[in-house]
């Protein structure tokens, strides 16, 4: 599996023509990222020869005063479009995170992943050391390695691991992650994604034993998130993120290896016309949810238009469509994880002007008590989610144990 430590994309160095973030001193830290095919000394000299022009505070990053080409790192370094100082530590962390996601995107697109996608964790060929790992485990390793290299992360809690991994005592951030959401669909080329949330490390817990402080740091309420986002691996690779002031999406430009700002300040429509749920479970739904779906399908809800159905069954893909087109994406049974999926996506949706709910209350107000705690999840347009909640009984409690 040696080649998994390499990336096929060019190392993301912005060409001199671009406006770069004003944090010149972080260049050295950024250079600690794993790179392929470019000499690090060359990189350093190229960084130094670049003119670091500060971005105008609060300006439109795709305005007429430059070529409109703004990378994720430019954007974060300039305060996430709002001119507020997000801090160099977060910029470095985001750099390493996007690097990991580019490596995952490369793996997902590769024709050589078909067996990676199907293997079970216990499968082995020959010695355990050489046993190939399934793609979600490989993705987990990639993210963990990148977060370690960043030097900015105290603890990482992953959907793939039973307990969090303590990385660095003085790391300022806590990262929760689902490294490859929807990975069981990989062999049918169905879109997959990486979901992440970033919290500040709780310094008041520093005196506790490692296991305890690792867990408590990871069990923060969603309302304390500093940043969150997802990366969609589909027909294009899209990095959608909020740094606490709006939601923004960046598309991977394979020619430069950069995530480039393509959707600034996404605003989810206050109402949509699409609902996303597994309709096959209709007979297991509570009365309220059945009533809601029947009503909007017929165009008899608060929105007089008939709603259409879309259900990819890949949370990131269904949410991405909902974010852009409006409507509501949901899983009414307690299936999705609060820490790794619910909180990061709820924060992102709310930053885009949408609403999150477990059917009764906002997701971000829920205090997690277990790392892998599950809950029903309803995300989408403000008015659609509010209307859905008004039907009262929308959480599915019947769960006969589904095969698919």
């Amino acid at each position, binding site marked *: 599996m040696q080649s998994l430590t390499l990336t096929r994309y060019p190392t993301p160095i912005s060409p001199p023509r671009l406006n770069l973030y004003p944090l010149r001193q972080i260049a050295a830290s950024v250079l600690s990222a794993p790179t392929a095919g470019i000499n690090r000394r060359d990189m350093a000299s190229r960084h130094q020869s670049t003119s670091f022009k500060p971005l105008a505070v609060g300006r439109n990053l795709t305005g007429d005063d430059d070529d409109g080409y703004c990378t994720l790192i430019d954007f974060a370094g300039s305060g996430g479009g709002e001119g507020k100082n997000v801090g160099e530590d977060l910029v470095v962390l985001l750099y390493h995170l996007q690097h990991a996601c580019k490596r995952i995107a490369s793996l997902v697109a590769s024709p050589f992943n078909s067996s990676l996608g199907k293997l079970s964790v216990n499968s082995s060929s020959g010695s355990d050391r050489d046993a190939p790992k399934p793609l979600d485990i490989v993705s987990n390793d990639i993210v963990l390695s990148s977060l370690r290299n960043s030097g900015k992360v105290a603890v990482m809690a992953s959907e793939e691991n039973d307990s969090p991994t303590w990385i660095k005592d003085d790391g300022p951030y806590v990262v929760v992650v689902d490294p490859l959401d929807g990975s069981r669909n*990989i062999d*049918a080329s*169905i*879109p997959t994604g990486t979901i992440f949330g970033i919290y500040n490390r709780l310094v008041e817990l520093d005196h506790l034993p490692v296991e305890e402080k690792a867990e408590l740091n990871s069990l923060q309420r969603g309302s304390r998130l500093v940043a969150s986002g997802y990366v969609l691996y589909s027909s294009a690779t899209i990095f959608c993120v909020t740094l606490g002031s709006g939601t923004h999406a960046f598309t991977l430009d394979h020619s430069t290896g950069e995530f480039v700002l393509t959707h600034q300040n996404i605003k989810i429509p206050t109402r949509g016309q699409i609902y996303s749920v597994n309709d096959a479970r209709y*007979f297991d739904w509570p009365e309220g949810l059945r009533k809601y779906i029947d009503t909007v399908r017929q165009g008899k809800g608060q929105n007089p238009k008939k709603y259409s159905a879309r259900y990819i069954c890949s949370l990131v893909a269904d949410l991405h469509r909902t974010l852009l087109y409006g409507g509501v994406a949901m899983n009414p049974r307690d299936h999705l994880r609060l820490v790794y999926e619910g909180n990061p996506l709820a924060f992102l949706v709310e930053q885009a002007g949408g609403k999150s709910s477990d059917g009764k209350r906002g997701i971000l107000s829920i205090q997690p008590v277990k790392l892998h705690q599950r809950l029903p999840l309803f995300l989408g347009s403000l008015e659609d989610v509010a209307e859905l909640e008004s039907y009262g009984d929308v959480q599915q409690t019947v769960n006969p144990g589904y095969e698919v």
Partner: protein
Amino acid sequence: MDHAADAHRTDLMTITRFVLNEQSKYPESRGDFTILLSHIVLGCKFVCSAVNKAGLAKLIGLAGETNIQGEEQKKLDVLSNDVFVNALVSSGRTSVLVSEEDEEATFVEPSKRGKYCVVFDPLDGSSNIDCGVSIGTIFGIYTLDHTDEPTTADVLKPGNEMVAAGYCMYGSSCMLVLSTGTGVHGFTLDPSLGEFILTHPDIKIPNKGNIYSVNEGNAQNWDGPTTKYVEKCKFPKDGSPAKSLRYVGSMVADVHRTLLYGGIFLYPADKKSPNGKLRVLYEVFPMSFLMEQAGGQAFTGKKRALDLVPEKIHERSPIFLGSYDDVEEIKALYAEEEKKN
């Protein structure tokens, strides 16, 4: 599996090598089909690259605005159409082209004509580009069986006369699925090599699946058999496990999943679209051809899909396709309905 070693193998079965191997089985073959296919493959690679950059279009000059030369820049579906028309014409192996994007058929000028007619949807599901959903190109190939001036009659033939069909899906990976009438094979684009590699040889759809794919938002407009069938999927009376729903809303993505996992894809007629919505020549026929070649079935609600004889190039039809046993069930419901009437 050693990913590093695989990535550096030189004995990979590329799509060109695969088609050349197939060609060698026919001593009389002159390689026309291989040349035609290589042009289709090139078109797919080009469109794949453009789709990857879809969100960057405004920044790099693809979207519907005016560029610095004062020329109108092209939307992705229009661009894809131009790519395929140019690729097919320049192959020198085609006479008639029918595209979803063009109202009329394209007749190739005499000096560049060949013995094939190609029907295609250059970018199926293109309304999904913005939201990052998988989209694709669908194509079907007929042979021209005369030397007279070509006409639309040369493509208004039943699907069972197609000699090849396929689709290229631009998803998390780029995959080209092809049948030349001897099974169905899947090839995945290796971005580092720029080659389609055989990754899914001889695809066989499971006899029965546990996924159904339909837009349930239209349920109130369905006919009796479709309504009954979907209800049966959700709530089987015989104690078998309920099916699960998946509906991307992009035909290529939904059919691709059905092909690999089994189950059924439905786009029925309804009160709004009494003739269904999908186009016979470049959606229904190619996908039905692939399904049958993989051991599945395709049915229109009245007959085997490939037995339809289209009268217009953009004609529509209802379609039910997928696993053999699943399609049998819906056929039985339509037969029952017919008895009643």
